[in-house]
């Protein structure tokens, strides 16, 4: 045999000589400028700026504040600045993430008080989240292989839709809801395409954040988990039990984060307030608000047919061709055996289905915004058709692609642009966008009705309240109040020292409410029970009739008249020990 380890003469050594360029060329890190101007970043930050400006105009010029947005910001505010700052003050009636996202902005209250008083922190949070949604949306289109012109047209139609503009600017949770749903969709599409576990993990993570934003995500989780199970099973090698276990593993990876968020939130809620699902069981939750006939969009006297009709109108407003698109996209996907189609249908469609079933079943209100997922769903169905068409006509990299690209951009304009008009029409039709029409009435109506004027007067009411409280120069913990009542979040965030209030999120609320006299609360603030949902006021529950009679231990100190959509309030001075606390 040849001598071991002796290289035959004349053979080059295997190692590259010094100076040889190493392997594949290292990717040059992109400069900040090229990153900012990239196709992914540019629409995101341009729309971010637009949304922030819009939010500023709404909050400071028109002073239009969406009530749920104010309440969510108030929860974030309680965590930081209430009498008893603690994380539990985030509240458990709503899922926590929308309130949490306002906290980073609220920290700058000292620099810019308008963040708190005019709800601008909430607007900034929703603007950032909606810009995030735009970013996810464009990336999803790219994931689908839609060519650039069509991609940009569709992104623009999504980001500039009137409902998207309004909900990016007003601080509501819709922005975070869409951000997380689109994140889930994007990575689920990638998993369906590549089968990479990392994508499934990202999809699962976005889904979990989605649940922490909105309950509707449960619908997405259920339907999409079914897809993961089936696709996982069909891809698994082997047979029998092993194949089932593979599919179950995929499903576990997809569901574990959202299941943990679900259980974790319930457990924390249970530990802190004694109820695992306050959003359903609490008297502030939608279910009980609906039952008590609250709100302008109550469902008590509405028949099932009327509810279904409303839902159909809402869907058409967001996506005029949704039904047709769904059928065509299903046929095309089945024809080309493209499973990616299932991602938006289950994730966005699942959340949508949850809303629809909830309203049809009388569990929640008929709010136009609850159907907002129909907008990206409709556009993504168009994207699935365009993607399939472009794939068949000219594979990527083909030089003769441009006529196809122009064609697909035209198709996008034709099928997607009408939603800009239909959504706008729905928004200002009181029978569809009841809340939006009312809130934006003063802005867009040439001759606003009395109902439109209500919102315009809100600011005056809030300022008058804050000025009265400020004049009293009260020490911390002086006024017991259930701040879930209308306008109170606005009131509290506008006074100079919000710590004068004892609110349900404070850990000693029940104790102080039970005996305000002994625990040094000087006043009780209570709304007129005839102007609010009857069962939702914990003060009136403990002291029935306190608004009118003083409950035997308080005397009327100040009357705040109703106005600007706020009910009448009585500030009642505590004069003694409540009869119920004696003995």
């Amino acid at each position, binding site marked *: 045999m040849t*001598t*071991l*380890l002796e290289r035959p003469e004349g053979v080059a050594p295997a190692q*590259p000589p010094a100076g040889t360029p190493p392997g594949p060329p290292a990717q040059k890190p992109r400069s900040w400028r090229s990153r900012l101007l990239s196709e992914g970043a540019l629409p995101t930050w341009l729309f971010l700026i637009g949304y922030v400006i819009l939010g500023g105009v709404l909050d400071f010029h028109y002073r239009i504040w969406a009530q749920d947005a104010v309440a969510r910001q108030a929860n974030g505010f309680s965590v930081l600045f209430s009498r008893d700052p603690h994380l539990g003050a985030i509240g458990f009636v709503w899922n926590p993430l929308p309130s949490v996202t306002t906290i980073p902005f609220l920290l700058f209250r000292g620099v810019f008080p308008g963040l708190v008083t005019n709800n601008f922190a909430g607007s900034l949070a929703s603007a950032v989240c909606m810009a995030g949604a735009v970013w996810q949306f464009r990336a999803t289109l790219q994931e689908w292989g839609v060519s650039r012109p069509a991609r940009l047209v569709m992104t623009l139609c999504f980001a500039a839709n009137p409902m998207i503009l309004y909900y990016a600017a007003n601080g509501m949770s819709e922005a975070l809801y869409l951000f997380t749903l689109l994140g889930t969709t994007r990575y689920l599409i990638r998993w369906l395409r590549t089968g*990479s576990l990392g994508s499934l993990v990202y999809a699962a993570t976005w889904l979990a954040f989605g649940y922490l934003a909105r309950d509707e995500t449960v619908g997405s989780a259920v339907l999409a988990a079914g897809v993961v199970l089936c696709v996982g099973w069909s891809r*698994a090698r082997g047979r029998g039990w092993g194949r089932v276990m593979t599919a179950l593993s995929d499903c576990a990876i997809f569901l574990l*984060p959202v299941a943990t968020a679900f259980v974790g939130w319930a457990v924390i809620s249970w530990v802190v307030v004694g109820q695992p699902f306050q959003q359903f069981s609490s008297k502030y939750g939608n279910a009980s608000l609906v039952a008590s006939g609250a709100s302008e969009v109550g469902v008590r006297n509405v028949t099932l047919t009327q509810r279904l009709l409303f839902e159909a109108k809402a869907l058409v407003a967001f996506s005029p061709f949704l039904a047709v698109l769904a059928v065509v996209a299903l046929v095309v996907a089945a024809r080309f055996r493209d499973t990616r189609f299932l991602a938006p249908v289950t994730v966005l469609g699942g959340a949508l289905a949850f809303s629809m079933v909830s309203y049809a079943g009388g569990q929640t209100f008929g709010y136009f915004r609850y159907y907002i997922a129909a907008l990206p769903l409709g556009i993504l169905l168009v994207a699935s058709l365009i993607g399939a068409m472009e794939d068949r006509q000219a594979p990527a990299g083909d030089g003769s692609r441009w006529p196809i690209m122009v064609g697909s951009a035209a198709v996008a304009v034709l099928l997607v642009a009408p939603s800009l008009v239909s959504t706008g029409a729905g928004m200002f039709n009181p029978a569809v966008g009841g809340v939006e029409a009312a809130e934006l009435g003063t802005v867009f109506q040439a001759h606003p009705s009395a109902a439109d004027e209500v919102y315009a007067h809100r600011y005056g009411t809030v300022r008058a309240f804050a000025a009265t409280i400020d004049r009293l120069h009260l020490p911390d913990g002086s006024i017991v109040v259930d701040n879930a009542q209308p306008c109170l979040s606005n009131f509290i965030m506008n006074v100079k020292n919000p710590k004068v209030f004892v609110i349900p999120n404070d850990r000693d609320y029940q104790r102080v409410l039970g005996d305000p006299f002994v625990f040094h609360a000087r006043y009780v603030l209570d709304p007129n029970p005839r102007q609010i949902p009857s069962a939702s006021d914990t003060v009136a529950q403990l002291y029935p009739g306190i608004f009118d009679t003083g409950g035997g231990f308080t005397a009327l100190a100040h009357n705040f008249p109703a106005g600007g959509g706020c009910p009448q309030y009585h500030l009642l001075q505590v004069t003694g020990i409540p009869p119920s606390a004696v003995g």
Partner: protein
Amino acid sequence: MRVARMNEAEERIRLEASVSGLAERAPLVSARALLTPAQRIGLIGLAALLVICGILDLKATAIAVVAVFTAFYLVAVVYRFALFALSAKTESTIRISDEEARAFPDSELPTYTLLIPAYKEPEVISLLLHNIGVMEYPPDLVEVMVLVEADDTRTLEAIRSKEPDDRFQLVLVPPAEPRTKPKALNYGLTLARGELVAVYDVEDEPDPLQLRRAAVAFSTQPPQVGCLQAKLSYDNPAQNIITKWFTIEYTMWFSFFLPGLASAHAPIPLGGTSNHFRRDVLRRMGAWDPFNVTEDADLGIRMYREGIGVRILESVTFEEANSDFVNWTRQRSRWLKGYLQTFLIHFRQPVRLYRDLGWRGLLHFAVFVGGTPLLALANPAFWFMTVLWFVAYPSFIREIFPAPVYYAGLLCFTFGNFVMAYLTVVASRTVDEGRYLVPALLIPLYWIMMSMAAVKAFWQIVFTPTLWEKTFHGLGRTTAAEHAPPGAAGQR
């Protein structure tokens, strides 16, 4: 089979180089002494400071300690998730397909030396000969050095009786302290002639194309890449729940964390086997530290400090997972102890370490090498406090967890534990097509085992330094023994 022969003088010189080479070349990175005088004073000073602070204000001291650990937990959790995210980057692992590996012309392949230390494990010798025998590499370009202690007669007998072919070379390591695997490797390295050097354990079952893949991979990498780490896995995962956990853990390690570290250009603690080196690089840096019980991890850190690149190679070597609880604990406590040892050694010159590693590298080193044993040790204390809190609501826990620490702690407890368990489930999906979902969901039990091993490791370092000396004998060599079937393990 050939036998390396030399006279006594030559043997002594080689032995001296294997034992004291590193300690003389760079005494400050050698583990010959665990602590330098300055370190000893520093650690005693720290302990004294804690005691004095505790006497002055017990509550504040407890809060500070809890806060530091909580912060460390938070960093560690975020860090591990970041490594997972980074591991998905394609460039972190070098992949050479079967076709590429075979198509590479034989004439351009480098010469290779395989170093295989064997200590008191005659039972697996035939396995070794078979597994190495089937590796695809031109026989005239490879030499396989089986490193056996000269007084280990049973292993010697076993090898001689099998009459291996001429690719194999028997190297008799002169019996001398310390009887560790790294010393044997160093000794072998003094004789190695291959341009590339690889390390395997006796019972390893490497991918037959691994040498070719490594050679091709090296040819595509710049000269400063001095080491390739192949992935390790186990061939007996189904044996019992410990082997299942162990396999899932290895998958996390080699599929997520090490590629993540490679992506982040961070120091990579090597695994004990299936490392491939450029021989000249290895020699230049003093090779293995014969006094370090995790010489592999230490070598990875030293390579990083000297600017030598380490990459992960997509090629699997199968080992035999430790299926016995006692053996597992013994092995794990040694690993954790070794990590701690490595951590202390490199922190002897913190400023120099900072200069070598940069702040990022320092973070990687502190969290990955220091954090692994420290947090495994701290876990039981925090679990205990959590259980106590929910069961009895003792007031002292409320006092040492002021709001910010409490919320950070709560986040660690919920989010942190979830992330670690979840990554385990994800890793289990890549093992055997996801059949280990149930063991993955039970992984907290494995964490408890890990903490028990950590307590043992710390106990040995802190309270019984003499036992440290005793365990030193042949510690490195026990790796192989512990991997061997139960019959072999008992012979140590």
